[in-house]
């Protein structure tokens, strides 16, 4: 199995005034292509912070992140933006949809940035939304969708252009049980098709769906479990 993402001695420190808080204390891990990895831990353990560093949404204080053999430390902001656009997909806890864009427009937008012509971007977005079971809500605004449907739109946006890695930060935290199971089942299906997924969750029930679970506590990996 090839390694798609690797972190080496990752440290993240937040500074508030004179007070420094070290949230990640030297995390080293590897993620294999096609793996479904769950990161767990109690609230404040540093799991979301680790996800943000790995997904290039934030800059670690020290340590290295290597994605497909490239050390991200050597990338400038524009290169990171391209990486986020072309290689990654994101699913956030609160869906992170643009309120004035319909479902299909939310999915189309990043495809346009990827230089797709409008009809092609539209077709890809429509297919992605149909894949997540929202073929009948293409032109609904986020405010007209339930939480579960909004998260499906968010997933459609993330997978429309088949990213190398799908990052999900507590994707079921705001959803009811039925919707949560449906979303997680969708992740399992995607993973079966070869999609690499790194998901942060604090719910034990859903951790079991991942191939591997790493537990974070106080900024360190305290346990690794393979399902």
């Amino acid at each position, binding site marked *: 199995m090839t390694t798609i993402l690797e972190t080496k001695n990752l440290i993240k420190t937040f500074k508030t005034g004179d007070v420094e808080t070290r949230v990640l204390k030297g995390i080293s891990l590897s993620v294999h292509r096609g793996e479904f990895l769950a990161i767990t831990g109690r609230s404040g353990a540093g799991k979301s912070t680790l996800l*943000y560093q790995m997904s290039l949404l934030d800059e670690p204080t020290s340590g290295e992140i290597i994605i497909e053999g490239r050390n991200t430390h050597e990338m400038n902001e524009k290169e990171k933006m391209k990486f986020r656009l072309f290689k990654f997909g994101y699913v*956030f806890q609160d869906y992170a949809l*643009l309120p*004035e864009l319909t479902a299909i*427009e939310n999915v189309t937008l*990043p495809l346009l*940035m990827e230089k797709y012509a409008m009809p092609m971007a539209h077709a890809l977005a429509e297919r992605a939304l149909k894949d997540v079971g929202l073929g009948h809500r293409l032109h609904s605004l986020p405010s007209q969708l339930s939480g579960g449907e909004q998260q499906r739109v968010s997933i459609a946006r993330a997978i429309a252009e088949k990213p190398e890695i799908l990052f999900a930060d507590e994707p079921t935290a705001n959803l009811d049980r039925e919707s949560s199971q449906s979303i997680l089942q969708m992740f399992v299906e995607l993973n079966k098709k070869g999609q690499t997924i790194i998901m942060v969750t604090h719910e034990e029930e859903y951790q079991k769906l991942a191939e591997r679970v790493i537990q974070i506590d106080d900024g360190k990996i305290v346990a690794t479990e393979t399902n």
Partner: protein
Amino acid sequence: MKILLNLRVGWYLAVRQIRRSSKWSNGLIIFVMLLTFLNLVVVTGFLVGIVDGISNLFRAQETGDVVITAPKDKNYIEHSQQIISFLETLPQIEDMSARYSAGAQLEANYKERANANDKPNQTGTSIVGIDPEDEARFSDLPSFIGEGTYFQPNDYDAILVGAQLIDRYAFGGDIPGLTPLKNVYPGTILRMSVNGIEREVVVRGIITTTANSPLAARVFMPEAELRQLIGRDDYNVNQIALRLKSGVDAEQFRDLLIRSGINQTAVVQTFEQAIPSGVAEIRSTFEQMGNAISSVGLVVAAITIFIVIFINALTRRKYIGILKGIGISGSAIEIAYVFQSIFYAFIGSGIGLAILYGFLVPYVAKHPIVLPISNTIIVAPLSETLIRVALLVTATIIAGYIPARMIVKKNTLDSILGRN
């Protein structure tokens, strides 16, 4: 290519943000832009219109489109009658008025003056001899008779007096240097002195116009009588004013008259050339004043747009973070806000243009705003208006770009998580 991509994504975002944002807030911003546009164009246009109102009066009541006057070294136009005969053959002329003029003294209440040492109730003025019918056609003089009547056929020893020569009209009669006549009404007998000849004349009517009208401080009498008073037996007039038919170019017509040789005994000028030089300077001054006031309006509009876009971008900071997070470039996001600013500026200006040229300018041209100084119109040449639209759009582009840039530059994750 990158810029085209950013423009495309920026446009995609902007259109949807405008279309789906609150209609009230959109309407309010467009209303502000409309007021700014009107402030930019109408204030200056109105100020310039005050002066152009004076100029228009001068044109309508004095010079017409082309005016022929005596050269500087002559009191009259030589061979006037031949010139008039020639002019009467020209089809380009709509109306013509040939006028005699001379300096005159008018004295009122001279019979009641008990003591020779008392200050006489008199004033100096310019007296104009006219053909009443020609002048009525040319300057519509009868319509300005506020008291009394216009000349009757075969009127003799009768005059029309401009209101500014009469104390109850002329700034209350207490302006130093001005000595308007007291107790003068239609029917009042005045003593007139022209060219050393004294004659009693009756006030037939009083011309009431705005203070800056060329009729306001003049006295008119039938031409035959003035000609007799000034001994102008050769019928040589002082001024021939010509109104041209619609569509006739005044400069080309002036050149035609010059080519015909009229300039050998007279000065031929278009209205623009004949207008007193001070009027052009006042116009320029008012224009600069208008520009200064408009500049303040432009700054206010830019600040308004800045605040609107800044608040909009600030409240949407999380979404801007998300956009950046999913790979939308900062430039595309900034362009989306710039497009929104342009939209507000264009719609505001577009409505402003429609109101200005569809209603304000034509309406005020038909119904000038009557001010003490002139019958004011709105002067708004399209080329100058378009420059002001360009200024407004430029100001709003800058005012829209800066706040968007400020928010886009913030850390992506901080924006997504709402951290400061």
